[in-house]
């Protein structure tokens, strides 16, 4: 009993170092599984991300919190290591070594995919909202905004003053999208071909959700991360800009 107490105290006190160790072990186990069990067919990073999601589910069930495994005190450091600060900092670091000319050449494709991506996600979300029985323009706009990303949903909902249950649904859709992007994209990346910087730029612009696209690109090809991140990091900003304004007016005009 004494020994586990000591260990627990140490792990909690040094939470970030604990996170390094845990992620290291998960990575090692995942890459070994990838090599020996799937013979490299399923990428090691994909397995590690799936494993992370599973841990997040178990953590959420055990604690009832919203931050996955990091709600368990011993694993609190994982929340810091995987929080938006470190995510954004490492994403910026991936720009080191990227080709600026490639980006300039695909600038138009990036812009087109960004606008199309926000409009498309919003429209699909709005259609589902309508089928789900929501009739007011405010509710439909908020749910459509949640389909853009789980950040845009609540911002739009707050601006339009909708009920908190609708905001919760919009966040739910955004979270499902983000996880679906993490899981589905690496599986289909060979079929739809995301293997050039241009396609990565378009992928980032169409899907947007930063956590989803960053995890998906890590599993597909780490060298393409900066290109996808370049457009996806503008996606949420664009969504916050157009959802509570232009798109809300458009929905109000149709409903």
């Amino acid at each position, binding site marked *: 009993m004494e020994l586990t107490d000591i260990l627990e105290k140490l792990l909690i006190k040094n939470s970030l170092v604990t996170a390094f160790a845990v992620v290291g072990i998960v990575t090692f186990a995942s890459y070994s599984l990838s090599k020996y069990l799937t013979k490299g067919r399923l990428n090691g990073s994909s397995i590690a991300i799936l494993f992370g999601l599973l841990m997040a589910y178990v953590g959420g069930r055990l604690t009832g919190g919203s931050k996955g495994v990091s709600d368990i005190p011993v694993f609190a450091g994982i929340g810091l290591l995987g929080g938006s600060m470190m995510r954004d900092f490492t994403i910026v670091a991936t720009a080191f070594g990227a080709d600026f000319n490639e980006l300039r050449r695909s600038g138009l494709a990036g812009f087109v995919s960004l606008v199309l991506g926000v409009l498309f996600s919003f429209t699909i979300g709005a259609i589902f909202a309508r089928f789900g029985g929501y009739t007011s323009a405010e509710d439909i706009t908020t749910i459509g905004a949640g389909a853009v990303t789980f950040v845009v949903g609540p911002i739009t909902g707050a601006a339009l003053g909708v009920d908190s249950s609708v905001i919760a649904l919009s966040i739910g859709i955004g979270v499902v*999208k983000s996880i679906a992007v993490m899981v589905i994209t690496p599986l289909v990346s060979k079929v739809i071909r995301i293997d050039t910087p241009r396609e990565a730029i378009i992928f980032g612009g169409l899907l947007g959700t930063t956590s989803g696209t960053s995890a998906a690109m890590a599993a597909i090809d780490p060298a393409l991360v900066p290109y996808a991140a370049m457009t996806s990091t503008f996606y949420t900003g664009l969504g916050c800009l157009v959802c509570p304004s232009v798109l809300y007016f458009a929905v109000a005009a149709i409903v």
Partner: protein
Amino acid sequence: MVIYGVLLLSLCYFAGLFVGEAMGRLVGLNANVGGVGFAMLFLLLLCSYSETVKKSIRNERFSDGLRFWQNMYIPVVIAMSASQDVVKAVRSGWLAILCGITLTVLSLCLIPFVSRISSSKNKAEEGGRD
């Protein structure tokens, strides 16, 4: 020195977030509009055009610190996936799950189309890749 590369990275990071935040205020939003994208752009521009930075990279003064955090990207993403609200996603009901998955699949299907449209526009410039 590892810290010089990390310093360059953090300066770009803050410069980018500052621009993003200022843009957000400018359009009347309490949100950061593309701050990380601007930060990446600053780092990319410095590494491509600034002679001082280029020289320091060649002398290995910056590259260690930059490369370390670049390689930490995948571990950070794994930690990020472990701190997602998966329970909420599973519990948010058929509407959310169906919508999220349909949306993802349809958007992924759009990639080849957008790629084709935009590459036919740029073909002259690119010398017809494909």
